[in-house]
């Protein structure tokens, strides 16, 4: 189908975006990469009166190295993220995650900020940022605030973004010595949203897990951190018995939605399979 009638504007500054949001409120939607919003408009599942295109706002950052962090601007596209040497060196989980995102043509256009602000529960970026302990930067005419990813998602497609705010960037900690990571997902077809996925990031010290985050996606109304399983692993070696314990803890903690095609028990099961698979990979790498 074709999108319903709407008006379009392309502000040339963040202040222009804030002014548009102030003027149009709920009737406006921010258009970034458009790889979800345009599809929803075309299917008439979304019907914004005004699309506020931020693609040419010059004051959004690209990928910037800061002490201890990378600052990744909202408009950084997946393809650029994967190709960035800074990302490959300092936050390799993100580069490894990109091939799981949709298809080449979508990755050339879709943006990191768009994915984070939308918060699809089965998307890779929100879960990776959660696993990495990133924080999002939200700006409005009133100023800028920084929110940890673990406080950003409030429910299904519900975030801490206020109607007057724009997600302008995400700040991601650089990898530390001994840091490990892994990502995988289970899909029916290449490029589909995950039935279940897992992003892992952690630090090992002398064979023992010093810190670990397991962020699952596609298994709830938002990406979820398996904190029980992480607590069980801290201070332990990643041996098969520990991995089994962590897997059981993840399965017990998940509460996936019931849908007619994918029953909750199946999503719990494959969530557990992913825990076993990825922790096994990490164990081999650390050995």
């Amino acid at each position, binding site marked *: *189908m*074709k*999108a*319903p*009638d*709407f*008006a*379009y*504007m*392309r*502000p*040339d500054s963040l202040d*222009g975006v804030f002014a*548009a949001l102030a003027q*149009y409120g709920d009737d406006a939607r921010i258009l970034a990469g*458009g*790889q979800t919003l*345009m*599809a*929803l408009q*075309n*299917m008439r599942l979304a019907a914004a009166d*005004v*699309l506020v*295109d931020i*693609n040419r706002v010059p004051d959004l950052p690209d990928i910037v190295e800061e002490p201890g962090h990378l600052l990744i601007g909202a408009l950084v596209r997946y*393809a650029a993220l994967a190709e960035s040497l800074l990302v490959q060196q300092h936050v390799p989980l993100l580069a490894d995650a990109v*091939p799981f995102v*949709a*298809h*080449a*043509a*979508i990755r*050339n*256009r879709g943006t990191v900020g768009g994915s984070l602000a939308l918060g699809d529960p089965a998307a890779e970026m929100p879960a990776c940022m959660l696993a990495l302990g990133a924080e999002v930067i939200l700006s409005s005419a009133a100023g800028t605030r920084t929110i940890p990813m673990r406080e950003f998602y409030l429910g299904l497609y519900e975030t801490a973004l206020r109607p007057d705010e724009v997600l302008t960037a995400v700040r991601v900690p650089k990898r530390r010595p001994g840091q490990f990571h892994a990502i995988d997902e289970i899909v029916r*077809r*290449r*490029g589909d949203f995950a039935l279940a996925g897992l992003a892992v990031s952690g630090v090992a010290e002398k064979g023992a897990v010093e810190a670990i985050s397991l962020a699952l996606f596609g298994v709830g109304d938002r990406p979820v951190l398996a904190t029980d399983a992480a607590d069980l692993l801290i201070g332990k070696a990643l041996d098969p018995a520990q991995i089994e314990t962590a897997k059981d803890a993840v399965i017990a903690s998940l509460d996936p939605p019931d849908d007619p095609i994918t029953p909750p028990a199946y999503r719990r099961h494959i969530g557990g399979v992913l825990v076993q698979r990825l922790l096994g990979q990490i164990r081999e790498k650390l050995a």
Partner: protein
Amino acid sequence: MTRAVKSVAIALKVNGENVNETVPVRRNLVDFLRADLGLTGSHVGCEHGVCGACTILVDGVIVRGCLMLAAQADGCEVETVEGADATGRIAKLQAAFHQRNALQCGFCTPAMLLTAAALLEANPAPTREEIRDQLSGNFCRCTGYQAIIDAVADAAEAGE
């Protein structure tokens, strides 16, 4: 364009030629190419980014023509299958598709050619798995894909 508008004047390059038009803002880029410019080689299938039939190049990279507004292409360089055909950029792929019977109805073919060309330009000797991965976002309802993978592999071998 700091005010909300319903139509907009755009200036872009399409297949190397300058184009200046005024378009309704809700016109998708692929609809603009087809309806306003008569470039009907880019096809419109699902209109929500799933089938890949509308694949075109914007500023040198493949994108979904249905998930971008014509208004957003202002100032961009757009290439369609007509342009890629005229420059000979996809000639070896076209020959391999012909040779391998990699199409039946042909609806998906222009997008398959552009998507495959993007792969071969970045990676001249892809594995079959890499070819499958690149084409995973393009649906073909006729061939069952095997002949398309064969054709892309042949074109790679021929040095597309």
